[in-house]
């Protein structure tokens, strides 16, 4: 038979064959489930573009008020104002909120609605290798109507580590999948089989075939994003964490400290060179990658548990994580352009293909150098009015508007519920100390007076807190208590600089608290507020290279206003003092 006749013969059979087939109902049900999940999930997928329609990538809406996640390397080239297209065909203005260049995450806000379709957040620690997963986004910018492209595959690996480019775009503790991820997918969602958001995709392994999917793509885990969410909402450029120490395998395959900074909190908590790392952040550590994976999911400033061993003895401590970059260094790095790990080829251009190995052609570099200035911040285009209302420029911030907004929110919740009273009235607290004796504490606008059974302590605010800050061994209890009243009484009109930091669990445990950072006269103080708007902790650093004075406030309700029933003062690993408040006045 000629091939033409054979083709007709085959075609003639197929219609009959199709009606003769019975497909198992479990297969049809699985297909219907998939269709339903995709239908629901795709509504939260955003096609992100710069304001003139160029460039872009993908994103995913996580709350009805319009907050959406994407990659830093997608948002940055778009500038401050960008556009987001949804699967219903509508385009919305969007504004940058916060950026995490090290972790390659950015938070933007779509504007114009308060009922955006949002993706439910999953738990990336519950994801297992072999689970099915969907990736949705706009690979190769194929979509002309913002309908996302949907790809499907399995989770190939969890808790994977992908090295950064310099110090930026590190994918620690990431999820690996073989669902197709291509240029244009960056910033878009990784959904589990039930349509819950478990990751933000942004990288892939490419080598011999240019930048097209070859079965290995990587997504930032949603649990990492959850740790950073408060920080991203603060409108700042967020830094990642370091322990102040590096680790490596020793000859016996144990993970040990290979380098440690004496100025680090880990050193102050007792960690030394050659100590074996047993666990970090509650996770057993068996490889240096595992160590980097744990660090990579926390913002600078968090406190996490560390377990280490020396000479057979195990020690458990809480360490405070410092920043990967020094003050201002991260902002400076942003000003330079960086390489896009997943550049989208221009229309009509093939994705870059490497010359095949084995021939005498030059080797193309693994990460192609973009033309100079490609991913530097774009020139100022006219910002749409709706975006202007949600943007405030300030050096060092992604978008100061959101910092101001959250700072006001936290202060209003604190003061609104607690009525701190008129700014000129002293606070007077009295009760019992931990040792059983009486105390009387007077906080005024000029200083602090603490009367105890054994004597009195006085401190006057005069600009310099003194060295060492009194009383000795407390880390600065008196000025810390003074600042407490100052913040309540003066509110947003205080001197110095008051910033919203983000959310951090107070004392390294429990639900993340809103944190305000007050920098005044060279001294930085952090104030932790719980969900009910109560101040639960205060940390003051007269010396940034030493342990802070930590004050914990508890047992609210019995006293009026902002005064708690119990005040504990900690410094280093010791509790310095504890006060049970029996009477107080702030009016």
């Amino acid at each position, binding site marked *: 038979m000629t091939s033409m006749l054979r083709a007709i013969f085959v075609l003639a059979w197929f219609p009959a064959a199709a009606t003769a087939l019975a*497909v198992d109902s479990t297969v049809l049900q699985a297909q219907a489930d998939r269709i339903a999940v995709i239908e629901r999930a795709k509504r939260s997928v955003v096609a992100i573009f710069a304001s003139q329609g160029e460039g872009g990538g993908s994103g995913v809406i996580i709350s009805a008020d319009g907050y959406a996640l994407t990659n830093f390397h997608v948002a940055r080239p778009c500038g401050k104002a960008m556009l987001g297209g949804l699967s219903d065909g509508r385009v919305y203005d969007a504004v940058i909120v916060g950026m995490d260049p090290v972790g390659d995450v950015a938070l933007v806000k779509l504007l114009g609605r308060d009922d955006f379709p949002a993706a439910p957040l999953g738990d990336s620690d519950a994801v297992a290798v072999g689970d099915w997963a969907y990736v949705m986004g706009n690979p190769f910018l194929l979509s002309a109507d913002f309908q996302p492209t949907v790809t499907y595959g399995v989770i190939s690996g969890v808790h994977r580590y992908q090295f950064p480019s310099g110090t930026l775009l590190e994918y620690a503790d990431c999820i690996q999948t073989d669902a197709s991820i291509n240029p244009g997918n960056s910033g878009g969602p990784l959904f589990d089989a039930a349509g819950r958001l478990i990751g933000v995709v942004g990288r892939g*392994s490419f080598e011999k075939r240019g930048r097209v999917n070859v079965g290995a793509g990587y997504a930032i885990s949603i649990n990492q994003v959850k740790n950073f969410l408060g920080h991203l909402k603060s409108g700042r450029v967020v830094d990642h964490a370091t322990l102040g120490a590096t680790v490596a395998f020793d000859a016996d395959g144990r993970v040990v400290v290979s380098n440690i900074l004496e100025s680090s909190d880990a050193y102050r908590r007792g960690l030394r060179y050659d100590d074996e790392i047993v666990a970090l952040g509650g996770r057993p550590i068996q490889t240096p990658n595992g160590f980097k994976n744990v660090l990579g999911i926390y913002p600078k400033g968090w406190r996490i548990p560390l377990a280490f061993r020396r000479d057979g003895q195990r020690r458990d401590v809480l360490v405070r994580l410092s920043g990967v970059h020094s003050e201002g260094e991260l902002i400076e790095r942003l000003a330079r352009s960086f390489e896009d790990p997943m550049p989208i080829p221009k229309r009509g251009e093939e994705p870059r293909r490497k010359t095949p190995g084995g021939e005498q052609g030059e080797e193309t570099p693994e990460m192609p150098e973009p033309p100079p200035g490609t991913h530097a911040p774009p020139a100022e285009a006219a910002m749409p009015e709706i975006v202007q209302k949600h943007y405030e420029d300030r050096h060092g911030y992604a978008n100061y508007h959101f910092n101001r907004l959250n700072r006001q929110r936290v202060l209003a919740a604190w003061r609104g519920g607690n009525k701190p009273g008129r700014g000129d009235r002293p606070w007077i607290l009295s009760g019992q100390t931990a040792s059983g004796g009486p105390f009387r504490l007077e906080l005024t606008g000029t200083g602090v007076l603490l009367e105890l059974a054994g004597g009195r302590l006085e401190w006057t605010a005069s600009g310099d807190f003194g060295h060492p800050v009194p009383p000795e061994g407390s880390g600065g209890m008196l000025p810390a208590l003074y600042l407490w009243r100052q913040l309540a009484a003066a509110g947003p009109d205080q001197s110095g600089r008051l910033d919203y930091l983000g959310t951090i669990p107070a004392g390294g445990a429990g639900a993340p608290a809103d944190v305000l950072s007050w920098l005044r006269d060279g001294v930085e103080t952090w104030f932790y507020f719980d969900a009910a708007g109560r101040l639960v902790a205060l940390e003051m650093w007269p010396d940034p290279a030493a342990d802070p004075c930590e004050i914990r406030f508890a047992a609210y309700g019995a006293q009026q206003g902002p005064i708690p029933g119990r005040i504990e003062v900690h410094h280093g690993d010791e509790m310095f003092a504890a006060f049970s408040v029996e009477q107080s006045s702030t009016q």
Partner: protein
Amino acid sequence: MNAIPTPIRTALMIAAALAAGSAPAAAGAESETGERLAKVQAAVVKIFGAGGFRGLEAYQTGLLISPDGHVLTMMSPVLDTPALKVVLDDGRRLDGKLLGADARLDVAVLRVEAEGLPYIDPLSAVSAEAGTRVFALSNLFGVAIGNEPASVQQGVISIVTDLAARQGAFDIPFSGRVYVLDAVTSNPGSAGGVLVTRDGRLLAILGKELRNRRNNTWLNYAIPIAELRAAVDAILAGGVAAAPAEPPAKAKDPLSAGLVGLVLIPDILPRTPPYIDAVVAGSPAARAGLRPDDLVVSLDGSLVSSCKALAEALEHRDRFATIRLGVLRGRSLVEVELSVPREERR
């Protein structure tokens, strides 16, 4: 089944294969899959060796096929080092020793010193047809180190067919039955990885990267265990060794290619493959049936991979010794015996 026309038969097979697969959306099925994968992953090892240049990575994957540390993998330049390291799924780093390789199939068996290891018995392997859903486990791109498990990819067997490949940079001398896959398994580090059914039964070993130079397409394929069994048994029985355990001393009156009547191609590359350029008429080589374009692959059961290696190996043999030469002629392996007769002294 013979009476049913082919299109319907094919369509029915596909429907049957789909029905047999578990519904992916069901949560119960997902954790079962996870457990089965974990069992397979326990036997997958990460191999680190020679290389580390662009296009020639220094890592690949292997499968433990016995509790005493036998590892099945693909023969490649990665194994060409005395400092071979095998990292188990639990993170243990062991020294690997190359036991032997099969020149035609390009598979190799390593040995590590350990007991009671998790393994998959090659005898437990099953075969599959086009449409079978599979998982491929390998350390592609070297993502996993230490006790991190190998990566898992999912796909379908697109077709079961014969593979004909030619010599070349990424090419292999292999030809035989393979599973062609729709999963991208042709990646750095994937070679030696394992292909299993969705319920965790052993099917095949992932092949080396293979590119068609004319259209720049890469083939994702795996070699069924059934194709390898005889070769693996031969290696385990000591049949074909990659290198002699102890090199014998140089012979006092050594043999050479010229003496047996072989002219090899000019040795101009760092490792020139020992192709026969010409055979001297009437020589022992001619009488043994060797021909131009034959590729010498083994001498007395030991693999020789370059002109230099062949010359050196011949120097260790006495001029009048009987030698066994294995050559690749087209797609087949031919072994001949020859010796220089005493009267033909030069």
